[in-house]
């Protein structure tokens, strides 16, 4: 076996996190009063994917896992979830991997950034994009500016729990530090 044989380990681990993000999003869906949204626990796996595996895998986990869960019961939110949570994973990964020696502080900053991106992303979608799309496509006529403001609170709590959970899982998996190594392109 030569040195340039790719490893499929990271593909497999990314798939595990996509599956867990799907289950986490489905597992505890608490409807938020006065909006059509819900509170869930999937964010911790999106944040974990970003700070553990990097921005691109964070993007994949965020864009696929929770969006697939939304496809069941909340299809109108697939677009918002795929974009917002994908960006959440991407942002968390970008911050976490910006340093060679990653410690708990960097990961915390990455998790907070990811959470902020998630809250802001959902607000933009629910306050601006969906109402605009809803004027021509009834399917997206599900939120208003008022509902988006109401949902800021629960989304913030979700972001805090996702950040805390993701960090705890990252610490459990890596012992609280990671060193970025130069790796040849894998699969």
């Amino acid at each position, binding site marked *: 076996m030569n040195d340039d044989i790719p490893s*499929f380990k990271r593909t497999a681990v990314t798939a*595990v996190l996509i599956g867990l993000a799907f289950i986490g999003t489905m597992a505890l869906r608490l*409807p938020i009063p006065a909006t059509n949204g819900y509170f869930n626990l999937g964010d911790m796996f999106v944040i974990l994917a970003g700070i553990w595996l990097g921005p691109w895998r964070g993007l994949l986990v965020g864009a696929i896992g929770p969006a697939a869960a939304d496809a069941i019961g909340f299809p109108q939110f697939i677009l918002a979830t795929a974009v917002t949570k994908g960006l959440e994973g991407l942002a968390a990964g970008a911050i976490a991997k910006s340093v060679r020696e990653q410690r708990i502080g960097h990961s915390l900053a990455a998790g907070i950034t990811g959470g902020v991106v998630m809250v802001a992303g959902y607000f933009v979608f629910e306050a601006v994009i969906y109402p605009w799309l809803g004027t021509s496509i009834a399917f997206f006529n599900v939120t208003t500016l008022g509902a988006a403001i109401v949902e800021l609170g629960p989304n913030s709590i979700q972001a805090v729990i996702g950040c805390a959970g993701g960090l705890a899982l990252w610490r459990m998996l890596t012992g609280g530090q990671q060193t970025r190594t130069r790796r040849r392109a894998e699969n």
Partner: protein
Amino acid sequence: MRRIPWVLRLAILASLAAPLLDSTLVTRWVPDNPWLRVEAMFAYMVAIWIIIGLNTGLDKLFSFISVAAVMVIATVIVGAIVQDVLGLVIDLTGVAATDEHLVSIVYMLMVSLPYAFFFVSSFSVAGLLQRVHAGSGALPRLARWVPGRRLKMKLIRAPLRIAVCLRVFQHLAEIFPPLLTVWREEHPLAILPRNRSDWQVEGPISAVAKLGNWVWNALWTWAKCLLVFAFRIVPAVDDEVRRCYVKLREAPR
């Protein structure tokens, strides 16, 4: 159904799931009556269960339903508590809508989780790898016509990546229900810890605090177990698929 080509199988499964995306696909066939709409959706749920049961067997169906039921109970209890607590703080004008939303989540979980487990188990990864080996898959066939080794190998790696992801999803569906069995060894009464000689509670607050503490600990431990068992498949799948890739890379094309 085993002999149905995978493309047709995928189409059939996707059409079975369409009402999960748009419930009007079920309710449009009944008159506009709320009771009849509920019955139509209930009939769809039972139909999905019957299809799953006929294909996977009753035991597997009940294990899928049990996982969904656990999630439903957790969602409903926590959701109802959160709703009542929030109602003490702010005037929730959308309470009735939230109740209906909660019920729809229950319905979705009881249908979609068994379906999701069934869906990922419906495709054979071994069959996919065998087709890749034989060069009979669409992408490997396409790779023969592509100039340039790098692009050729990317096209060959694509079905291997799909195989890895599919096998991982199947593995998660396999380990998730039996982990409830592991739970039973440590918590035989299913709601209280095994060893609790000083479990005395002095009042409702103490009881809630103790139970809450136990639930949190139990969930965190269970989550660690889930991660350990979820990641265990990775080395074996990696070895299997890499071996496939090496053979393909060395084969004359």
